[in-house]
């Protein structure tokens, strides 16, 4: 079975830990993820706000590139796997709309033709990474890889919205409001899974940028509920959910006079830890809310990635590049090349 991999823009930078941990875990499970060459942004929720046909065509280019790269598969449509819920929805939605509505198919392929591309609806099975791991790899195989069960860890499984909603026939594999796949996966890792009542409520999406008060009220509800259920960690399967819950947790605390300290980790990071992979290889340590106390419960030391502002300057040697960022990036590239 061939799996095309569409990481999406967030996983390139702000959610790089999701990408790193996905690749590490897939490697361990023998899941061969083949990145789609020269993929472009899926448009998130922004493109379709101003243009419809162009938004569909933007996604269409990715589908066409993936179809060309993955071919026909062995009888079954090859899978195109997205770890980001928004990318997953956009890819699946356009594929489905093209299949169901001839005018959409004509518009998308008419546009793609200008770039010498074409997509045949149904040629790919658009799937979310979580679903592929649960249904194709299987929980049995996941269990078989668990070397260090995360027994003491209370985890709130957070699905957010776009992983299960809207229901797209053939693409959505879990209940839109009461999904269980992430619960089951986390249990397979040994976690103590919290029966999180707000597991499919919204994190606010882009509202942090448009109307912060709206976003903070939604985030507050999620954090309060996870806190009341004594979760040590919130597990997520979407970069937007991670960013909102993690990076804006301080702002929510300020707004509501609370002191939530709930680390928000990708389910792939928790898988990696349970598989006994080193925390450094899972991109841990880049969170705003430190997972240090939570991970100490399962005997994992959180790597220190973030450097205080003054430190890199003090360490700099004569003649070395002034900015710390490119140095770090080069170091990571080297690390990737050797691993």
């Amino acid at each position, binding site marked *: 079975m061939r799996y095309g991999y569409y990481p999406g823009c967030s996983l390139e930078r702000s959610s790089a830990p999701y990408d790193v941990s996905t690749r590490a875990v897939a490697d361990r499970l023998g899941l061969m993820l083949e990145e789609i060459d*020269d993929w472009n942004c899926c448009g998130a929720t922004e493109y379709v706000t*101003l243009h419809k046909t162009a938004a569909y065509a933007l996604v269409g280019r990715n589908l066409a590139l993936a179809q060309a790269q993955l071919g026909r598969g062995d009888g079954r449509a090859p899978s195109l796997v997205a770890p980001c819920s928004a990318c997953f929805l956009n890819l699946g939605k356009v594929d489905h709309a093209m299949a169901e509505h001839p005018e959409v198919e004509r518009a998308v392929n008419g546009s793609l033709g200008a770039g010498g591309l074409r997509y045949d609806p149904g040629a790919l099975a658009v799937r979310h990474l979580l679903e592929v791991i649960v249904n194709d790899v299987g929980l049995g195989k996941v269990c078989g890889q668990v070397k260090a069960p995360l027994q003491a860890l209370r985890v709130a499984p957070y699905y957010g919205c*776009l992983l299960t*909603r809207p229901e797209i026939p053939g693409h959505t594999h879990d209940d839109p409001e009461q999904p269980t796949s992430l619960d089951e996966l986390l249990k397979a890792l040994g976690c103590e899974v919290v029966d999180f009542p707000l597991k499919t409520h919204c994190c606010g999406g882009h509202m942090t940028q*448009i109307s912060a008060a709206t976003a903070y009220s939604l985030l507050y509800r999620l954090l309060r509920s996870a806190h009341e259920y004594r979760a040590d960690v919130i597990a997520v399967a979407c970069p937007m959910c991670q960013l909102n819950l993690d990076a804006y947790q301080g702002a929510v605390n300020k707004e509501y006079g609370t002191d939530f300290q709930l680390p928000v980790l990708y389910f792939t990071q928790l898988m990696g830890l349970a598989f006994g992979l080193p925390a450094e290889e899972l991109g841990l340590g*880049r969170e705003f809310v430190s997972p240090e106390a939570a991970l100490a419960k399962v005997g994992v030391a959180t790597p220190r990635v973030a450097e205080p502002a003054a430190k890199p300057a003090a360490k700099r040697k004569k003649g070395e590049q002034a900015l710390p960022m490119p140095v770090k990036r080069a170091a990571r590239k080297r690390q990737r090349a050797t691993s």
Partner: protein
Amino acid sequence: MNHPRASTAPVRLLERVAADTPGGERLKLCLQCGTCGGSCPSGPDMDQTPRALFALLMDGDDQAVLRSNAPWYCVSCYHCTVRCPQAIPITDVMYALRRASVRAGLADDTDAPDFSETFIGYVEKYGRSFELGLATRYHLTHSPLQKIGHGPMALGMMFKDRLGLRPARIKGLSQLKAILAKAKHMEEAQGALRILPGLQPRT
């Protein structure tokens, strides 16, 4: 390039939105049950609940619909969509209403179109989104004094190595640009960019 000109006869917003949304014809089956509004997490911020908005739309009060803030407060959670007993693609209808409102020049109470435009600008220029560019360009031009609180967060992103200083760029940029230009041309030919007759932008 020649393309068929759309008729200039007035088209009701309901018809346009139905045509501009895959499956949007189902909008006409709305029962006014209110499940959408009851399911909406940002409903309290809206001047019209989705149900009330659809009643206005059905009634032909296009002006009121296009001036409503409801589509702009939609967080795209799709709770309404999966719960609607008539299977109306409500979230997608909200997107169509956003587009119609921008085209009519009536989306002037929200920064959201500018945010989308900035985002789209980077996608069209590089083929990928560019978070740092988006954050700086959008926030510096939209009430920057209110956004001072974002500063530490942005710095945090930087020090945690979660914000790229330079955008990633795809190889097939000219291909992507040709595709998007064609798509926009087709959209225009369908009359989607025309301002609805009888609606004037607020001055």
